[in-house]
């Protein structure tokens, strides 16, 4: 009987993802246990001797490392990665509480980057030899070189301190719409998100410009564009229908992958703007040695990453018929 190639692909790809998560969990576990001190990871620094011994027994730290590794994995599968010393709450719960704030920041940044990046990239690709196209490309190298955290500070200095137009810290009022809570639904919240989202967007804008430009240049030389022009279609229509459609596949793929990096990079932006997301929580935890939260953050982000990669891969293979589902290439 012939199996469905898409199903086989899904199963194989999910299996690979599971292996990656397991591998990263192993690295994080041994990183903490071999490099760091596991007792420090589990008890707060000001615990007394009796407390320390109680924890050592409770978490089985007197047992062999392999057994402990098994216990760690068991806990991880059940969603239990320890309790924060600072907040006294389960670490996973703490991070998930802050996840919506990070998500809305990353999504807003992505939208800003796309709205500016794609038109600029398309223009630079269609008219590669004009002065403005060269300027766009030079600006994209410049954007690439800008230290995100410094730009964040400069945005605060200019828009919050000098002009006093926009607030510099926090998330503002959080509104609720269709059961989703987000600061995107209130005017105050929107005012708060403009600076951090633009700051985070800057990082990806240069990349989107370069990617779109490369795609546009390639597509413009294809026969079907020449044919469309010969047919007498207007230039605007060629760009909208034939060009954009064909450069979207690589752009969407890379964007999917880059979305994860936006979440990782929001660590920096959240620290500057005191945005109450999980990135700021991570930095606070690193500074306060709240190790269960660090481990939980790393595990959740790795999981998120592998999940995004999986989704992008599946969408990509569904969109692009040239991708072979049965091939050995992963």
């Amino acid at each position, binding site marked *: 009987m012939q199996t469905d190639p898409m199903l086989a692909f899904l199963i194989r790809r999910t299996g690979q993802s599971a292996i990656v998560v397991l591998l990263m969990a192993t690295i994080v576990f041994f990183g903490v246990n071999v490099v760091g001190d596991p007792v420090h990871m589990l008890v707060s620094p000001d615990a007394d001797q009796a407390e320390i011994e109680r924890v050592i027994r409770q978490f089985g730290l007197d047992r062999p490392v392999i057994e402990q590794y098994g216990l760690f994995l068991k806990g991880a599968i059940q969603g239990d990665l320890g309790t924060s010393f600072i907040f006294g709450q389960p670490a996973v719960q703490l991070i998930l509480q802050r996840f919506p704030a990070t998500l809305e920041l990353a999504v807003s940044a992505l939208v800003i980057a796309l709205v500016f990046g794609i038109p600029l990239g398309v223009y630079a690709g269609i008219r590669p030899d004009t002065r403005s196209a060269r300027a766009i490309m030079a600006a994209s190298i410049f954007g690439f070189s800008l230290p995100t955290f*410094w730009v964040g500070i400069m945005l605060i*200095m200019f828009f919050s*301190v000098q002009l006093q137009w926009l607030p510099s810290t926090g998330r503002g009022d959080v509104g609720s719409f269709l059961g989703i809570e987000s600061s995107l639904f209130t005017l105050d919240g929107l005012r708060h998100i403009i600076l951090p989202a633009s700051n985070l967007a800057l990082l990806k804008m240069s990349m989107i410009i370069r990617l779109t430009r490369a795609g546009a240049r390639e597509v413009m030389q294809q026969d079907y564009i020449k044919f469309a022009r010969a047919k007498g279609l207007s230039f605007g229509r060629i760009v909208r229908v034939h060009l954009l459609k064909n450069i979207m596949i690589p752009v969407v793929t890379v964007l999917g992958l880059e979305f994860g990096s936006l979440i990782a990079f929001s*660590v920096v932006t959240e*620290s500057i703007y005191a945005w109450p997301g999980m990135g700021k929580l991570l930095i606070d935890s690193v*500074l306060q040695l709240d190790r269960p939260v660090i481990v939980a953050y790393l595990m959740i982000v790795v999981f998120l*990453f592998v999940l995004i990669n999986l989704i992008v891969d599946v969408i990509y293979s569904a969109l692009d018929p040239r991708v072979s589902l049965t091939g050995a290439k992963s």
Partner: protein
Amino acid sequence: MSASLPSSQKPRFKDTSLGVFVSQFLESPVAVVALAILVVIISLAALAPWITPQNPYDLAQVDIMDARMEPGEEAFAGYTFWLGSDGAGRDLYSAMLYGLRISLAVGVFSGLIAMVIGTVIGLTAAYAGGRIETLIMRLVDLQLSFPAILIALMLVAALGKGVDKIIIALVAVQWAYYARTVRGSALAERRKEYVEAARNLGLSPARILFGQIMPNCLSPLIVVVTIQTAHAIALEATLSFLGIGLPQTEPSLGILISNGFEYILSGKYWISFFPGLALLVTVFCINLVGDQLRDVLNPRLAK
């Protein structure tokens, strides 16, 4: 290239392969200016102790009464704070040049170590082939599918602060790029006739790898080195800004910017602004030079 030169005439510089490379590089005025600025920046950093009015980390030379002076104000000791002073009364110009030294040293040093490790691993993968190659390349792909800052955060969280630890983290972040690049070009080289000839001559695999194949992989490697050094400098600054990179005793540009951040809301912009500008100009110039190098050395990879 210079095969048919008359024997009486010495080859002129511009006909040698190095000469061609130099003249092609010089074709872009932007890259030349960037390189010139870079040379100035490196010289300033190297000469810091001799061209700054104070050693910002010698407590005897720093006066807390001079704290947060605006650019152009005069210090107690008589010299002028051209770029202002920071929260501890250090001359910002001096602190920046000393900070540049640390930033450049950490970036370049970690880049070089990563290059050596990545090159050896990449060459090994290309030469060994089979299971070893698959294993190494899977590892490279795995690492490259995560953003550099996440890997660095993970390592710094496990290792802690310190110059040595941040260098380890930067090397761990970068090696995979080198390994991938070198393996790619080594695979192409391995099939060429001169490698076959060397093998027939009975040269050892190590000699073929490092003596024959490696020199031919240098062009793409040089491009990666430039871009990665810029990345490393920016990443170190980011981690140091977040307070999880270098310690306060090794004040790189990132730490100077971080120190200035607390004064931003009171309008004292210069403490963060100038060190950030220095960081930006340095990274930007390295990237511009790298971009031109890529165009000259590897037309296939042209933008």
